[in-house]
């Protein structure tokens, strides 16, 4: 590997880790807390990061500043694997990226989760030849594709268009919620009809107000940069930083993935202790693509996510070696195994499929994202079975 490539990987990884840590950018939190008690702070951060990244990746692609997309074949594997992954990440209490940044914050529980994800990858690799001819053959429908590459609309424009449609949809939901509250239960049909028309406008106005408040807060924070950098950040601030790092990565390497590089780390580490990783079809020809089992640039990037999270946590006074309660060990073990296996069965994790996958408009990722969110929904209801969920 060239030194400049390594430096970019280290920079992007460190930045991602730091922003994830500062924004508590947790995909489990984003969906679980929304279902459990309609808390959408982190959900908004995830949406902002995904849509902004989509716009900038679209522009970068249109002008040729990109290397490759990640577009696996699509089919029901996304739903099945995604669902298993969603169950796993909710039970573990951390998604693929969340596990990494919490490992950097000193959570021994999430180092155990990482280890069990590794066992999940290894088990999948052993079973791959059978799965390939049964599970993947039966459930795969077609070749994977990014919508950026197949439409006649310029990619930059398409990205902006999808972002605007998503914003209008969001504004309508927000606007409708507030008009319903305003009219109360006595609202008649005519009023509600009017409300439906006004909803996007009201929602957009609220969005503009919220964004202005946020921008003012950010400007205030800039006046005392050192003190502000130690405080917890709004997930939207983290979203801006994550977008910048992801755009740099896209122009230099590819989309941002987590579990693919982790599965390669598993093969590489096993090969260091004498396992013939290269002789396994999944490691040898799928993950390392016949190039031999060695450290690749995205593996370096992922390792630096832990470093970045560690540095940010130390800086903020959030770092501590945290020993889990013994009754939480099943969460790390079972959750890790399910995430490891689920991310290979889909394929892809929350970052590959929800964040990067939607941002690159990959058909496979639309399906897998539905699977993951469905898994989170089911598992959230199970964990909250004694106290109940809002949605």
């Amino acid at each position: 590997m060239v030194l400049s490539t390594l430096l970019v990987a280290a920079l992007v990884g460190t930045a991602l880790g730091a922003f994830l840590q500062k924004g508590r950018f947790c995909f489990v939190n984003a969906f679980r807390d929304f279902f459990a008690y309609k808390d959408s702070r982190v959900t908004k951060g995830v949406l902002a990061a995904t849509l902004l990244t989509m716009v900038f990746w679209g522009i970068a692609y249109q002008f040729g500043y990109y290397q490759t997309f990640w577009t696996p074949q699509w089919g029901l594997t996304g739903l099945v694997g995604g669902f298993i992954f969603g169950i796993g990440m909710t039970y573990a209490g951390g998604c693929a990226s969340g596990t990494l940044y919490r490992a950097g914050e000193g959570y021994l529980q999430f180092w155990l989760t990482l280890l069990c994800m590794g066992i999940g990858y290894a088990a999948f690799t052993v079973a791959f030849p059978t799965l390939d001819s049964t599970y993947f053959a039966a459930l795969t429908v077609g070749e994977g594709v990014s919508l950026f590459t197949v439409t006649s609309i310029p990619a930059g424009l398409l990205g902006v268009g999808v972002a605007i449609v998503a914003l209008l949809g969001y504004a309508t939901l927000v606007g409708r919620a507030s008009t319903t509250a305003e009219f109360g239960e006595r609202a008649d049909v005519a009023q509600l009809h009017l409300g439906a028309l006004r909803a996007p406008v009201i929602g957009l106005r609220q969005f503009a107000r919220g964004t202005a408040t946020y921008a003012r807060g950010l400007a205030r924070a800039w006046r005392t940069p050192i003190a502000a950098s130690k405080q917890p950040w709004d997930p939207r601030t983290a979203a801006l930083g994550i977008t910048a790092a992801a755009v740099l990565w896209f122009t230099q390497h590819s989309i941002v993935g987590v579990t693919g590089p982790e599965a390669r780390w598993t093969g590489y580490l096993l090969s260091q202790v004498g396992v013939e990783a290269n002789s396994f079809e999944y490691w040898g020809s799928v993950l390392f693509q016949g190039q031999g089992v060695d450290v690749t640039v995205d593996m370096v990037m992922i390792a630096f996510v832990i470093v970045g999270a560690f540095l940010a946590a130390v800086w903020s006074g959030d770092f501590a070696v945290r020993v889990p309660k013994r009754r939480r060990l099943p969460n790390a073990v079972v959750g890790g195994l399910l995430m490891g296996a689920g991310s290979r069965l889909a394929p892809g994790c929350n970052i590959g499929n929800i964040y990067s996958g939607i941002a690159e408009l990959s058909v496979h990722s639309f399906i897998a994202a539905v699977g993951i969110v469905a898994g989170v929904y089911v598992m959230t209801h199970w964990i909250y079975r004694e106290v109940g969920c809002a949605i």
Partner: protein
Amino acid sequence: MPSIDDVTNTPDELSDDDATELFEEADLVQDMMGEVCPYPQVEAKKGLQQLESGDLLVQETDHVPCTENVPRAVGDDADAKVWRSGDATYRIYLRKR
């Protein structure tokens, strides 16, 4: 669906002295050290169900996100205040309404 404005609504922070004083009033203390989301949220909700109005529930935690997520989870059931020790441990004070 909550509005985008409530992002800024984080719980009040207690000073070291207030935190120590208030801790002695606690009617129920939950040891959440080593626990991660969402279990502290679930335990806080269960804990509040056992308490009377005006009672104080205190959670001790070393999981940063809990300082925001637990107050969110209990919502209107309790008034929340948070104390940050500065060395990665936190207390969440929930006064039942």
